[in-house]
């Protein structure tokens, strides 16, 4: 690892020679080309090959100088999942072509993984990709796709060989969402909003140059993507919960109910759990920083999901009559899920998804039991069986 100086020095040089008011895209492209996008990545691909820690100083310098940022929140899947996957398995041509517009935010990405028949059992995906000449033709249905209506590209997991066991016959692609065979329909949730979509794929054509990784090696590639997802969901849940316990604490202080001993103890139990969860999260970060990654990420996600649910539920009760209102049931299609500033009713309903998305709490408990505690695996009757023969 090179030391921090070159990255921040180059950033300062860039900042001096560019006008912060340069049109957004031009400015971001130039920053990428100067290796100041993700500095830990290789030179020529938006980086300088220096230490990941240098990123923070570079980011701060650009922000302080009034340069536009790449609106990372709007392209969470692109930056958090697609980019690491492309870096890991992409060809040189793919990296060259896909990463720059991804980083600048010109091309938003979404993820086409889950299907009506493949939720927790993701390897059961049935969307078929059939080889035709120098490309693939894709048919199937995907679900729970955030941002599909904004996305230019999707990470697609599709079945390429139904004669192989389920994990073995999958291939991973970058799918161009502008293909006429792609139909995106909003999927309305219990909150009234539609953060997610259903995506119907009918004879969508993918050139073989958009395949990510080897044919029938898609499961391993997907695991790379998901490892990044769980880290990012674990972190964002922690932030949500931290705000939430503070919000509920304020409500609790002012609620007439809070003088009842039973209510006080119920709130305090959650308060203690929330503060201890923060400590557990802090300890996990310290382990990661010390180079001793632990499996605590899955554990934290289970804990934070429960806390967000119970805290928001208690808050409605504390609010009494005020808890009976609800902001708005209109079907908006938000790009970012934002708990802050939302009423308790919304948070209560949205938090129900916390124990489902990105691995249900039940699946995460299985993972802890099997991977951490070493308990025997679940009975899997479809193991080793050709996918086409397994019961569905």
């Amino acid at each position: 690892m090179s030391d921090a100086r070159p990255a921040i020095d180059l950033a300062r040089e860039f900042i001096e020679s560019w006008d912060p008011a340069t049109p957004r895209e031009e400015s971001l492209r130039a920053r990428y080309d100067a290796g100041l996008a993700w500095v830990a990545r290789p030179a020529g691909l938006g980086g300088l090959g220096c230490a990941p820690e240098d990123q923070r100083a570079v980011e701060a310098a650009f922000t302080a100088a009034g340069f536009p940022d790449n609106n990372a929140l709007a392209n969470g899947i692109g930056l958090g999942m697609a980019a690491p996957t492309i870096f890991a398995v992409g060809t040189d041509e793919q990296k060259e072509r896909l990463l720059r517009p991804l980083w600048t935010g010109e091309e938003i990405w979404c993820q086409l993984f889950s299907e009506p028949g493949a939720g927790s059992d993701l390897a059961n995906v049935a969307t078929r990709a059939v080889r035709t000449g120098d490309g693939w033709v894709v048919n199937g249905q995907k679900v729970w796709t955030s941002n599909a209506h904004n996305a230019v590209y999707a990470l697609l997991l599709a079945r390429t060989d139904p004669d192989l066991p389920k994990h073995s016959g999958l291939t991973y692609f970058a799918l161009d969402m502008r293909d006429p065979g792609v139909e995106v329909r909003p999927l309305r949730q219990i909150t009234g909003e539609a953060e997610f979509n259903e995506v119907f794929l009918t004879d969508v054509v993918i050139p073989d140059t958009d395949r990510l990784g080897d044919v029938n090696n898609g499961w391993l590639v997907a695991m790379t993507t998901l490892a990044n997802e769980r880290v990012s969901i674990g972190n964002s849940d922690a932030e949500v919960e931290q705000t939430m316990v503070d919000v509920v604490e304020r409500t609790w202080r002012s609620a007439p109910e809070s003088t009842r001993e039973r209510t006080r103890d119920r709130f305090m139990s959650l308060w203690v759990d929330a503060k201890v969860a923060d400590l557990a999260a802090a300890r996990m970060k310290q382990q990661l920083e010390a180079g001793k990654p632990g499996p605590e990420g899955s554990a934290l996600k289970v804990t934070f999901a429960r806390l967000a649910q119970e805290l928001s539920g208690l808050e409605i009760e504390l609010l009494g009559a005020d808890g009976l209102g609800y902001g708005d049931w209109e079907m908006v299609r938000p790009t970012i899920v934002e708990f802050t500033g939302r009423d308790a009713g919304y948070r209560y309903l949205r938090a129900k998804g916390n124990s489902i998305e990105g691995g249900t709490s039940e699946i995460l408990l299985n993972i802890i039991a099997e991977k951490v505690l070493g308990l025997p695996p679940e009975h899997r009757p479809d193991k080793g069986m050709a996918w086409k023969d397994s019961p569905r």
Partner: protein
Amino acid sequence: MSADLLYSDTEDALRESVRALLAATCPSERVTEAYDGDTSVASDAWRAVSDAMELAGLGIDESLGGGGATSREVAVVMEELGRVVAPIPFLTSSVIATRVLVSCGAGDLVRTLVDGSAVAVLTVPLTTMDLGDLTLPTVAGGLVTGRVHAVAGCELATLMIVPALDGTVLTLQAIEPQSGSTSVTMRSSFDMTRPVADVGFTAAPATELARGADAESAVRAGLLAGGAMLASEQVGLAEWCLESTVAYTKQRNQFGRPIGSFQALKHRMARLWIAVNSARAAARNAAVLVDAGGDEAAVAVGLAQAYCSDVAVLAAEECVQLHGGIGMTWEHPAHLYLKRAKADQVALGTAAHHRAVLAEGLTPT
């Protein structure tokens, strides 16, 4: 914001040597004998750990001949003591009483505790979180009179630190219990590895250690240190319960498969693992912050006690349940852990009591 919650290499090394020592000195079959009236269990174990390693003096300042360890290091010892349900008065003498004496500036008395030949105890009920509305013995003319119930750590005690009222003023009095004016009645206790006794003083000659605000802050410091270290004991205890349960359910077969392969059981153990890890973070936080004192220390200890004591009980109860019939037997050590965990739950304040105090801190001023 956050304290260093990991274990250092020094702490890992300390753990390794303490674990080896306790494996030799506190095997579970020997510890169980404490329940059958064998009073030598505690003294043998205490002598063995004192001779092999000056554990009793570990947290005592080097200027007083001790090991000079910080609370976060002593906490590692507490975890190991919890893992074997060690029947020794480490918490009561080496943590609580030592901290009280240090706070009183009684260096000469602290020095006698280093090699374990002297054992001290703060004579308050084990359930004490603060002196609050306890009925205390009284002192007049250097003589203490009164009774205290359910005091832990008396069985080997050579020095009693007695909170006693001089009129309305709190004092701390040092009493040597061997004198005829002090009676110690050991009770048949729920946790015989940390048995409680009723202590009576009848005009017992005493030396005053502190009075007024000094006495109050000394007691507070002792109980706060005790609460922080108890949390680590609870983590160690819970960790053993989880590990032994996981090991057992992997090898116990029913219906043609290991019972640990049933999801109903796996999820219980996975949840317990989450809880134990969280408890560890809370206990480490308390151990790091307790030495600094002040509000931050009080909140950290309150948080750890409000969380860890219930986790230890849950772990011990799950241990008994998931072991099935064997978990209910005298022969299997699970009961030692259950009894200790349950007694620990009410020791130094229940979780609900700690939550109530934490809630006061949240009330707007």
